[in-house]
């Protein structure tokens, strides 16, 4: 071993001087988890941002113009404008879900990052809340802002009012990252996420009015669609971007927030059982 010569006496012999006194810890601890994830994201920022921009652009140009050419005005607006609001919600849902499923699971079960964090003065609650906010607010906003930029670029929206969708984007993100974290904390392998996408996310996408108005669905299915959180996100976002009055804004917000809070509360309990049994 050549590095023996480099060894020095132990730094700091006092004990407990660096760790700030416990009662001085008025900090929002989930922030440290968000910060950790942000630093990893920053390393791959470029490819991530390109994906955020190019994906919706292809979708909107391809479907919006391509399919739109065959379609009459929907809801009184060109199909591209109709679709853009749906795509904003769909991409936000996807990006929050991906982060809270695959990425969070790899930190929980593969890299055991969560376990490492728990060796510090952090709790399971801090970790799960941090992941929830990272996927539901940060990652969702990144993709939401990217699509909004594309929408401005394509002339689908203008002025300042469309910027008010950004809080809605966060609501949609928190809703779906909360639900996804329940699946993640229960999962024993990545396979569960494929099922979740096939059985929950994909049907949600078709029933919530992303690609076509929900009133073209049969009555029974329309009732089902009303309890799906994405429907409530679509109603809010489409109302805002098309400049129309919102019909049930408080209900929409309550449903999105309700799913998200219930999800994250449940995920904390499941993670606690999983990590500290």
């Amino acid at each position, binding site marked *: *071993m050549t*590095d*023996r010569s*480099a*060894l*020095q*006496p*132990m*730094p*700091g*012999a*006092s*004990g*407990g*001087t*660096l*760790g*700030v*006194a*416990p009662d001085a*810890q008025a*900090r929002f*601890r989930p922030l*440290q988890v968000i*910060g*950790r994830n942000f*630093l*990893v994201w920053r*390393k791959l920022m470029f490819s991530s941002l390109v994906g955020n921009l190019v994906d919706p652009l292809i979708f909107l140009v391809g479907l919006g113009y391509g399919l739109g050419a065959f379609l009459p005005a929907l809801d009184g607006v060109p199909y591209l404008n109709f679709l853009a609001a749906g795509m904003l919600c769909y991409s936000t849902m996807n990006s929050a879900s991906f982060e809270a499923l695959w990425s969070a699971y790899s930190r929980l079960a593969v*890299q*055991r*990052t969560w*376990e*490492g*964090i*728990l*060796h*510090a*003065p*952090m*709790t399971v609650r801090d970790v799960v809340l941090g992941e929830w906010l990272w996927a539901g607010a940060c990652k969702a906003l990144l993709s939401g802002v990217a699509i909004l930029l594309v929408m401005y670029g394509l002339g689908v929206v203008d002025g300042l009012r469309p910027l008010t969708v950004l809080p809605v984007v966060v609501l949609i993100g928190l809703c779906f990252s909360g639900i996804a974290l329940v699946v993640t904390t229960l999962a024993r392998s990545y396979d569960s996420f494929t099922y979740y996408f096939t059985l929950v996310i994909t049907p949600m996408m078709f029933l919530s009015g992303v690609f076509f108005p929900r009133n073209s669905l049969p009555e029974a299915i329309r009732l089902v669609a009303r309890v799906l959180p994405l429907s409530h996100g679509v109603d809010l976002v489409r109302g805002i971007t098309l400049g129309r009055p919102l019909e049930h804004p408080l209900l929409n917000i309550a449903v999105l927030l309700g799913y998200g809070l219930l999800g994250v509360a449940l995920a904390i309990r499941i993670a606690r059982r999983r*990590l*500290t*049994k």
Partner: protein
Amino acid sequence: MTDPVPTAAVLAVRELRKSYGGVPAVRGVGFAVPAGECFGLLGPNGAGKTTTLRCCLGLTAPDSGTVELAGLPVPQAAREARYRVGVVPQFDNLDPDFTVTENLVIFARYFGIPAAQARANVPKLLEFAGLGDKATAKIDALSGGMKRRLTIARSLVNDPQVIFMDEPTTGLDPQARHLVWDRLKSLLNAGKTLILTTHFMDEAERLCQRVGIMDRGELIALDSPRNLIEREIEPQVVEIYGDGVRDWAAAFGRTASSRIEVAGETAFCYAHDATALLATLDGWPRLRALKRAANLEDVFIKLTGRDIRD
């Protein structure tokens, strides 16, 4: 087993019990560790060492019993107690998304240590761990020994009073083990309290002032290695091997030694004075004998048996 709790105990554990699905993993363990001591928990695989440590750290809630760590009740105030504690888990969980330096800085953030202060401490920690030239290396590029030393360095980011180490040297080659021992000694010299588990008896004898031997969830012995050897076992051991060892054992084993165990092709003979025993070997030219002083491994084997546990 329990021992009296000294007033300056950094860790005091009483009557700790924990079952998994009705199967007991820890059955009424109690011990206390005074400040500045190196305390070792020994035991075969599955004895309950890791479960005991996890209960001490508040990472697992025991079914019953109490733990006091750095003066705080655990698990109630476990999070607060961990400000003063370092943890080296049985299996490394370094963050593979980051470099060596980033691992230390980011772990310090979980303690609320400002990034600038954490970054200023990195060179000292890396030098201590013998990783001075690895500051920007990725975790995947480190050897097992380097990862272990980085995990030890990570456990020191908060300058803890007490450090828990679960099998710090398992899986390391002899050079790497000696380096880790050297580092642990310098931590002890710096006044830290160390609580470690191991199944290397030489490691325990070398580092620990006191050891607790666990078996099947129970603490079956607790003392300094020297006292355990004196109390539990005869001072001299003769290992006899070679053709005909079983015949020799049948003829002389019981009379010449106070205790004998035949394992495979070797007879382990324990005696207060081995002179008479060695004399019986004269007529057995094909046997070879190795006489040595009894050590902690002999105590461990006597108390926990020779059976393999997996």
